[in-house]
């Protein structure tokens, strides 16, 4: 057993952390999040240059990047492209992604029906043309290509062939869109059992990715809390001497470590296609999503009034944490699936 990332992966982590910290300090992050699109349009080519979009990256390599893009949010459809869409793409399209020429996302949820990733889709394809309505499409207004779930399998549709309505979002760097397809030209990607199996793998992967990002978010929230608790004085002492503050930080630390362990387990299971992948990913998503919210809420509380202001960066993390926790349903939904494995 060996639970550490490789030396190369740790190098990748260090590089990613420096790159993101430099490019997205707290002020810049706020500017982008509050901008019209919420996207740093220039960064995509750089990601390709750095090799972040290579199809050859293992999921463990990506895991490192996902944790770091939680620690310092990356204002680009990286999660949508590399996690949600990539597994479904044909080689040619994957090559375009790898070269930084294409961004993509997955469109699955539809109004008025259950919206889980594995729930049946109502969109249909007839004569190579796709018709249907999708909602809550992550980064829906920021991508070139949609991977669309339909009653007949997965299809690729160019964004230019869809009617995209962007929406505002609490987390300005990851906005949803509604997308309408009115007989849009669609390329088949997978059908039948293959499609169902692929979607299952995409979901596992997405859960692991959500957990990894959540770990990054929680770590940043904890770092901010600890730094503030050392620095800020009340009643003549740094507030970190008060157990009401220090024990909160300890609790966050413990949960963060637990979340990280589950997230790495899930990532490894996805990378290795391990038989426990489904359970590991459910567990990691449920636990880490809630841990990130817990970390941010405690960090806000520890900061007092200042942590409750728009100017402070904490709320950016809190909103990302909420997005992660809500992804494909709250933790109780994932626990219900875990329960089925254990008890039925």
């Amino acid at each position, binding site marked *: 057993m060996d639970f550490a990332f490789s030396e190369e992966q740790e190098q990748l982590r260090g590089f990613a952390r420096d790159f993101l910290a430099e490019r997205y300090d707290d002020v810049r992050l706020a500017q982008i999040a509050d901008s019209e699109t919420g996207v740093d349009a220039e960064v995509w080519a750089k990601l390709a240059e750095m090799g972040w979009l290579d199809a050859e990256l293992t999921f463990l390599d990506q895991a490192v990047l996902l944790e770091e893009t939680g620690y310092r949010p990356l204002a680009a459809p990286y999660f949508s492209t590399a996690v949600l869409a990539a597994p479904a793409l044909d080689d040619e399209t994957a090559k375009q992604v790898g070269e930084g020429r294409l961004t993509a996302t997955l469109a699955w949820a539809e109004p*008025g029906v*259950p*919206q889980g990733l594995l729930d049946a889709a109502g969109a249909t394809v007839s004569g190579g043309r796709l018709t249907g309505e999708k909602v809550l499409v992550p980064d829906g207004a920021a991508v070139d290509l949609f991977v669309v779930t339909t009653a007949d399998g997965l299809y690729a549709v160019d964004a230019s062939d869809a009617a995209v309505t962007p929406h505002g979002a*609490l987390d300005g760097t990851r906005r949803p869109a509604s997308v309408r397809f009115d007989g849009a030209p669609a390329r088949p990607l997978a059908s039948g059992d293959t499609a169902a199996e692929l979607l299952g793998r995409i979901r596992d992967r997405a859960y692991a990715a959500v957990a990894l990002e959540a770990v990054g978010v929680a770590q940043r929230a904890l770092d901010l809390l600890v730094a503030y608790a050392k620095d800020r004085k009340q*009643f003549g002492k740094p507030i970190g001497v008060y157990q009401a503050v220090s024990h909160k930080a300890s609790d966050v630390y413990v949960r963060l470590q637990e979340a990280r362990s589950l997230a790495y387990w899930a990532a490894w299971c996805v990378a290795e296609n391990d038989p426990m992948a489904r359970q590991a990913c459910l567990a990691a998503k449920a636990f880490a999503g809630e841990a990130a919210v817990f970390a941010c*809420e405690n960090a806000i509380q520890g900061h007092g009034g200042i942590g409750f202001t728009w100017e402070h960066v904490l709320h950016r993390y*809190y909103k990302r944490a909420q997005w992660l926790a*809500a*992804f494909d349903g709250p933790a109780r939904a994932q626990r219900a699936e875990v329960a089925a494995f254990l008890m039925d």
Partner: protein
Amino acid sequence: MDFRDTPEEAAFRAELRSWLQENASHREVEAGRGDFDALRAWGGRLYSAGYVGLTWPEGFGGRGLSPTYQAIYLEESARADAPGHPGVIGLNMAGPTIIAWGTDEQKQRYLKLLLSGEEIWCQGFSEPGSGSDLAAGRTSAVLDGDHWVVNGQKVWSSYAHKADWCILVVRTDPDAPKHAGLSYLIVDMHAPGVTVRPLHQITGDPEFNEIFFDDVRVPRDSMLGRPGDGWKVAMTTLLHERGTLGFALSAELERMVNHLVELVRRPGPDGRRPADDPLIRDAVAREWIEMQSLRFTNYRALTTLLETGIPGPEGSGVKLAWSEANQRLTSLAQSVFGLHAQVTGDDAPWNGFWQYWQLRSRGNTIEAGTSEILRNIIAERVLGLPKGR
């Protein structure tokens, strides 16, 4: 023991209920971001109808009723989903402090306009460097002839951007020990040298403000108490802030629980009724129970107050419990919408109501005494544990 209204109370409640039905608009559901002018007009209507200052002495424009009537007012107002009075700082903090410490002239000058909502008040207690530690404040006031000259900065001041007056804690004697050097001024927010800068919250709304005082000249007689009384006067203010808060909070919680029940009974975006999920049922029932417990805790504390003249310790935990309940409740509501909960603007579910209040609720454990400070207070003053920190 009798949990029913007396005949007089019942009559008051019935009259109020029908008046609200006829006169009150619903509270702005989208985000509690009401139009302030409309709110001010509403305050005037409430006052004309006799529902403001219910417990204040008749001589100061009040009705001299027992606090039970104020509790009834708060409950019925929440049940009708009616907007609040815009002058809460004046009504709950400045007014009672003026009644307790003010001269006759001060009472005549301020109280009636405060009740009618014609003049809005704010408070200047916290400072950037002091937070929960009021006695560490450094905003100074120096006597220059017939005026105090004020310099410094306050923060976390609700309504400052709309306020006409500010109750301000200043340091008048830099050489005295921490608490003894403080005094308590009434400051004209329109005076030269007063600058208000809105502080946006994580909701995006500018509910709180920073106030900067730059050589602001305040008439010498605009003080409550004498120089050096600031700490004692401020304690009166905070006592009233916390004293009258309980019923407002449990009434607010009742309103939120009602909305929550409404939410989970409606089919969700996927056609399913959240109320059919046993985990949600359990959580909703929990908050309803919590709400009832806080409501009756308030009434018990009120009974003690009416019997002994001193607010009962029973109520000291209401704000603490309420803030956590409101956080749980709003997070639960948001969890029902899945990722849709994150969508803002016109496409936000429930017109953004839950989104706004969920974020807003995080301030509940910070404002008006952080939960950490409140736990200290209960431990030390109610349970008699040794002063720690």
